């Protein structure tokens, strides 16, 4: 029997490199997986991880998918640092998309540069409003914000489903559960002609910079960091916990809402029955793989985006099942948590000889 014992001082270098270790371990397990699926590992790796990056289109897709992951991940990281766990970013993203979509449909046919900013604002407000529900219940009734925010995700999905099957369904859309296509003024400009990546990516970079300033230089960011690291010290200093909960939920909700705008006013161009393949959940992994640091979140989002795209490429070229993307995501998080465990703990083999061994015979006086 061996047991875990806490390390006296966790290594800082290891803490920073653990995402890389996790990624490497993921690749090794992945090659076993590819072998098992009857693929040549090197070729499969090439198709999965390298090929998407060999064309401008592929890079555009990478940035496109990284955008919602970054926006959601940055917002979640702000809360996670303060031990406020918003699990419902996907619901907030959906509600942001709904709010922005309703604005776009209400002003259908309108021209003018004001429409897009209004949609972004509506998306942020929609996401923040949805996030306000768990924040209110937590601060007022001490409910678990984890459960409430998670359950509200499904409410948001169903609400969107109700809208596209009913009130906002395109009358000329052959009964497909989707809205009219948005007008040109309601679409985010593309970064480069021919690619699908749009201006929302720039918004995500602004969010990263803003979050970095908030965490590093604002007093509110400091308060939230203290609350996460040492709740008793936060109480001692008089930092308000409800304030942290509100900041965390409103910020992450608004950013998730903007991510929703980026989807409906970007690649989708309309409201559909589903606007996210689970970006809000993947963003939880992104936030932790990025060490809850805004710049780390951006890098992790790019990695996660690559997993999504590589999964699609692998489906098409290697006929691998689509579940492979989820598998790689799961492997990455699993190895990250394992690496973190061994940064803070080490295995101590149980000493077999627990007996006091007399080494020398009785001393002559």
């Amino acid at each position, binding site marked *: 029997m061996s047991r875990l014992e806490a390390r006296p001082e966790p290594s800082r270098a290891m803490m920073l490199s653990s995402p890389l270790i996790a990624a490497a371990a993921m690749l090794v397990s992945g090659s076993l997986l590819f072998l098992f699926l009857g693929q040549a590992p090197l070729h499969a790796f090439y198709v999965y991880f390298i090929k998407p990056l060999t064309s401008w289109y592929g890079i555009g897709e990478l940035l496109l998918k990284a955008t919602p992951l970054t926006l959601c991940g940055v917002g979640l990281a702000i809360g996670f640092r303060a031990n406020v766990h918003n699990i419902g970013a996907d619901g907030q993203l959906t509600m942001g998309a709904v709010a922005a979509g309703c604005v776009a449909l209400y002003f259908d046919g309108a021209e003018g540069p004001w429409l897009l900013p209004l949609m972004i604002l509506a998306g942020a407000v929609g996401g923040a409003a949805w996030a306000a529900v768990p924040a209110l219940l937590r601060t007022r009734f001490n409910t678990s914000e984890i459960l409430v925010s998670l359950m509200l995700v499904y409410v948001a999905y169903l609400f969107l489903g109700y809208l596209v099957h009913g009130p906002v369904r395109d009358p000329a859309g052959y009964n497909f559960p989707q809205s009219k296509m948005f007008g040109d003024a309601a679409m985010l400009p593309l970064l480069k002609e021919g690619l699908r990546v749009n201006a929302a990516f720039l918004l995500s970079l602004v969010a990263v910079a803003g979050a970095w300033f908030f965490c590093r*230089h604002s007093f509110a960011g400091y308060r939230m960091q203290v609350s996460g690291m040492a709740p*008793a010290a936060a109480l001692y200093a008089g930092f308000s916990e409800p304030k942290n909960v509100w900041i965390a939920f409103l910020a992450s909700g608004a950013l998730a809402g903007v991510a929703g705008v980026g989807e409906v006013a970007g690649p989708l161009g309309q409201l559909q029955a589903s606007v996210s393949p689970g970006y809000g959940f993947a963003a939880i992994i992104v936030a932790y793989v990025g060490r809850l640091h805004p710049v780390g979140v951006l890098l992790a989002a790019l990695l996660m985006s690559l997993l999504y795209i590589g999964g699609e490429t692998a489906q098409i070229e290697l006929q691998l099942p689509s579940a492979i993307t989820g598998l790689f995501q799961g492997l990455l998080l699993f190895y990250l948590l394992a690496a973190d465990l061994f940064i803070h703990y080490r295995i101590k083999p149980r000493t077999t000889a627990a007996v006091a061994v*007399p080494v020398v015979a009785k001393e002559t006086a």
Partner: protein
Amino acid sequence: MSDPHERGEPRLRLLGISKVYPSVVANADVNLTVMPGEIHAVLGENGAGKSTLMKMIYGVTKPDAGEIMWEGRQVRIDSPSAARRLGIGMVFQHFALFETLTVAENIALALDERTTPAALAPRIRAVSEQYGLPLDPDRLVHSMSVGERQRVEIVRCLLQSPRLLIMDEPTSVLTPDAVQTLFVSLRRLRDEGVSILYISHKLDEIQALCDRATVLRAGRVAGTAVPREETAHSLAELMIGGDLPTCTLAPRAPGEVALALAGLDLPSADPFGTTLRGISLDVRAGEIVGLAGVSGNGQQELLKAISGERPAPDAASIRLLGRDAGRLDAAARRRLGLGFVPEERLGRGAVPALSLADNALLTGYLNLDAGMATGGVIRRGAVRAFAAAVIERFKVKCGGTSSAAASLSGGNLQKFIVGREIRLAPKVMVVAQPTWGVDVGAAMLIRQAIIDLRDAGVAVLVVSEELDELFMMCDRIAVLAKGRLSPAVATSATTVDRIGRWMGGDFAVEGETHVPA
């Protein structure tokens, strides 16, 4: 004076024991001899290496060099259970007991032999009676006082018939009366031939109890002594290697009431906590009021109620500088002029993983003159300047303002926290255990700084378990026992004896008999 070797083989001999940790030499070439039937004191300041040495004897850590001889044979002690098999028992300073279990259940869990609580009960009764340590095996631990809990630990050790008993600062949690009771039991054990290693820094206790003493200073043996033949002064000099520093409290007329508790009632938030009942106390500007008492009698609860970490139900029950403050949170009370040094340094008074600069900001943000956080943005320059000033003023040993709080020794961190709170220029200062784990020299620096605050007209409330300390630095003393507060009496008009009796919960004046309801 008989030569110890005439009494036969030493029970325990340490020869040249050394233990080096990455940053510090805990023990260097330590020799120690304990005879059968001897109470042997190991004396030294905090950080002198006493605990490390005991941990090696009890098999918790291993020495890097040196030999351990047990009853004449060289032994290697790999684990506490190996130590227990040899006949070594240890009573720790902090007890590891399950509150919701009975005495017998707790002991059954801790014993190496497999046995049932029911089978143990008669043995517990027999041992506890034999040594004058009354203990009911069927009682639940949470209903017991700290002194009674210590008895559980001692009886647990005695059930294994040890020939060497290690006691680590056993009196730090006891009232003066309970200390005397403990000493009677320890003497009885000695008379039966049990050896006792008694760790302490309290000179009077060592003189009253111990046959011989080994004095440690900075990990080395500074000397051995027969305590009864020494004075407290000469022992202290041996212990700290120089003259004992002192602090002075000049008489001073106090001013207005700055902190007033008026009939504060506060039910405990924790099922095993203490409920505060009818606490009334005035602390005036320019006086130091000491709160004596054994920990666990409501100190935590009272301090949290005063600091605002747990607001009181009634706003008027706590008044700060003339304002009703009972419902205010900690930040609002600090804005009124409250400074507070909590008893836990890491995790409450300071965030372990953050730098000293960031820890200066923890409460320093409320000092608007320092300008550490203006317009919602942290001003790093001002923060570092503030931290550097605290480090310099209180001679905090550290690598600079960017050292993590967790990297400091307990005493240095305490100096930093006290310094930070003093630098915030409070009008009311509350200090819990000001010198816990602080070496004698630094303790005097901290006490003098608190006295200087009082001389500058600050109202000071000090909560401490060290009666000597309270008598040294307080104008008035009150006792907190079982969640009730005694009247506050002038320090000059009372005695350690009387305060000690009050610590048992009986606040009647001497001579009168009084049965608590």
